[in-house]
């Protein structure tokens, strides 16, 4: 089963990367870019077939490794099929 885990900085937490990219887009002549935030996206392939079990495992992985829950939020998307 395939899944995606989306990890973004919590609101209000400074995002230096987003800031730098914002600046660069401006310099490259893209007007009206109000804000850019950069996050991580993990595509995970699991042997687990059962969605509930898979989700639980992914949640564990996110907490333990993929996301730094001190400053980041994460969201899990499962490809049900």
């Amino acid at each position, binding site marked *: 089963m395939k899944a995606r885990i989306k990890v973004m900085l919590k609101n209000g937490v400074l995002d*230096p*990367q987003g800031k*730098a*990219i914002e*600046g*660069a887009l401006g*310099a*490259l002549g893209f007007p009206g870019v109000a804000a850019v935030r*950069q996050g991580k996206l993990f595509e995970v392939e699991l042997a687990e077939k059962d969605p509930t079990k898979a989700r639980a495992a992914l949640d564990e992985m996110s907490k333990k490794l993929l996301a730094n829950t001190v400053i980041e939020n994460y969201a899990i998307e499962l490809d049900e099929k």
Partner: protein
Amino acid sequence: MKSAVIVFPGSNRERDMLSALEKITGKKPLAVWHADKELPKVDLVVLPGGFSYGDYLRTGAIAARAAIMDDVKKKAADGVHVLGVCNGFQMLCEAGLLPGILMRNEHLKFVCRHVKLEVANADTNFTRKYKKGEVWRCPVAHGDGNYFTDAETLARLEGENRVVFRYAEGTNPNGSLNDIAGIMNERGNVMGLMPHPENEIEALNGGTEGRALFESVLEAVA
């Protein structure tokens, strides 16, 4: 030899490079601001090491799109020598002046240590002062020096002797393909490498074998 070092926001080895060039060529190199549109007339253009724009997007990515880069490409096309060191190498790849890309180090950690470099091709304007197969000590200091490219490009690089330096004696610090430390373009006037020859030029550094790289260009353009 006249040379110019381009300064980007977040460059941090530009001063090392400027003083190395001055010590070796005896001429003060020019420092060129990234926002300028045009380079002065020089024999060597250097993209220095550092963390341009924080390297926040991809290393060298934002710098590769700076105003000055159009003229760097033009000069390169005109045959002017262009050298990219560390972050500069990453910029040259992002700018399409060199093939491939520098990925995150295999072990994901920044690494600063001395490695052994083997001169894979001594028949270039950047290495003519070395002997082929010669192995010399040089420092590296980077988090993204893991050279990668597709199989065909790699085959071409090797076939055309465009791999200039390799990490030798098992000192590959980053997982780089074929131990690649530095490569050049078809024409041989654009070279990028991850190690820092500018930090291996005087007794204080514990070795001076980095000088030959700059002396090679010096001789080539003389």
